[in-house]
């Protein structure tokens, strides 16, 4: 199992000597900064408006967690859909393109160790991305008093989503030797998983005249990350959400392992 660390740390080092990692982190930081500022200004303006109209009850309801942190993390999650594929696209596909898969697969290590090594390298990277978002949220603690527990839940939610998406990226990267194809496949899968699934079900359901609260509809809604993100961002964590992220990651990692294994037979 220590091979997992060997593979993950080599991958991370290679990621950080490539420009891709820095481009992604720069874009991520700039967007996070912009969104953070925009949310902050929006929050301020809302407060001023309520004060002007003497809507005291509204002012009372306003708080940093629900009106700033939640939408901020929510929008960063959308940005993740676009940026993460750039990080995960090369995880396994470049091994094939370089011919280094021949080294890995003839070394005394298991395919699980390869897959998990790649996965944890991606997890390491998204931890840095989450930490950047955490840095901006930290500023709020200097000047205001957001609820710590709820804020941490939001960050944990972002990290869990990212980790799940890394597993999707590992899978997409394992099916091809072409990074561009891996990028597009990851992006499409993330869009489907993240937001498209519930829409598609709603459209087909309303077309066929079936009730929207049928078993299938709720099952598909459960399968999309969006519903779990919304739920967790409200500060509510239940085992169904946690189970979702664990199961989704496990499924895609298992698929990656199967793909690598079966490729040898062709």
């Amino acid at each position: 199992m220590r091979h997992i660390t060997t593979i993950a740390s080599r991958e991370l080092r290679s990621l950080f000597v490539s420009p891709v990692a820095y481009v992604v982190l720069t874009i991520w930081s700039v967007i996070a900064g912009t969104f953070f500022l925009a949310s902050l200004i929006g929050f301020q303006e809302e407060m001023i408006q309520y004060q002007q109209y003497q809507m005291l009850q509204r002012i009372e309801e306003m708080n940093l967690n629900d009106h700033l942190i939640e939408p901020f993390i929510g929008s960063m999650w959308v940005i993740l859909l676009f940026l993460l594929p750039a990080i995960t696209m090369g995880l396994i596909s470049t091994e094939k393109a370089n011919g280094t898969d021949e080294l890995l697969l003839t070394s005394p290590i298991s395919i699980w160790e390869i897959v998990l090594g790649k996965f944890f390298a991606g997890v390491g990277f998204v931890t840095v991305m989450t930490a950047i978002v955490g840095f901006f949220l930290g500023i709020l603690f200097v000047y205001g008093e957001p609820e710590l527990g709820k804020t941490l839940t939001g960050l944990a939610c972002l990290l869990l989503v990212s980790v799940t998406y890394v597993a999707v990226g590992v899978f997409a990267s394992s099916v091809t030797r072409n990074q561009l194809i891996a990028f597009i496949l990851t992006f499409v899968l993330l869009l489907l998983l993240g937001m498209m699934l519930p829409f598609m079900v709603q459209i087909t359901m309303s077309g066929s005249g079936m009730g929207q609260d049928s078993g299938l509809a709720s099952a598909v809604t459960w399968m999309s990350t969006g519903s779990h993100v919304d739920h967790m961002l409200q500060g509510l964590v239940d085992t169904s959400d946690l189970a979702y992220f664990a199961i989704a990651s496990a499924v895609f990692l298992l698929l990656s392992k199967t793909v690598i294994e079966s490729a040898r037979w062709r």
Partner: protein
Amino acid sequence: MTQNSQQGAEAADTSAPIAIEVEGLAKRYGDFEAVRGISFQVRAGEVVGFLGPNGAGKTTTMRMLTGFIPPSDGVARIAGHDTFSDSIAARRAIGYLPETPPLYPEMTPRSYVDFVAKLKDVPRGRRSAAVDRALELCGLTDVRHREIRQLSKGYRQRVGLAQAIVHEPAVLVLDEPTVGLDPIQIREIRALIRDLAATGGQTVILSTHILAEVDAICQRVVLIDRGRKVLDQSLAELKAGGASLEEVFARAIAVDEAAVSFQAAGADGTTGTAGAPGADTAPGAGNGAAE
């Protein structure tokens, strides 16, 4: 020195344990049979040349030996471990230089060989020394902190070789180890391979289509053509016949081709195999299209 070590290995030949054992190894890709039932044995400390024209199935056979691809049929054992059912143990005993050296261009030779040493379970206490030793044996000490992408083809080939020997494997599988090197580098690499076998007792199987290479480092030759073994003899025996290696190999391949066309003509293929030792009896349909 070459002559002496050859003689020594010749004498020890029959008593040494079998390091590589291949029985009826075959690989099919759909209708195309890349390798059709090859069998041979290599004893510990032997240096065997794996020869054949392009497309004969050399790389496919080596990939099956190293466990990179599973065989369609037959077994390969490395130091007694089946490369398929006991693959981790078999892989631990192998150092493998694939056709294209498996390099990460953004790493330095030092960090790359260190990475491979970790993959191959070189104990932590000995790892640093083992890495430096492999780099030194392959003449990479001076460039060990340069990025691999900046190195010339010859140096990259040597990094590939350093990677293969870092864990001092019992068996070395080298797929065209001297391709792309200049004459001086070729001489150095050949000397290194000879030394590894003579002093380190390592078993080497290397593929090549350069006959001079076989003459320079190998004690025995396994010649394959169209996925079948057509010749398996010690170099000393081959030379004793008086003919040059080129003539011997050209003749063996010609005999094989005649047998194949005879088989194809005779449809049932009951008689055609006499001229080709170890030949498969299946008269495979895709013969003509194979090369």
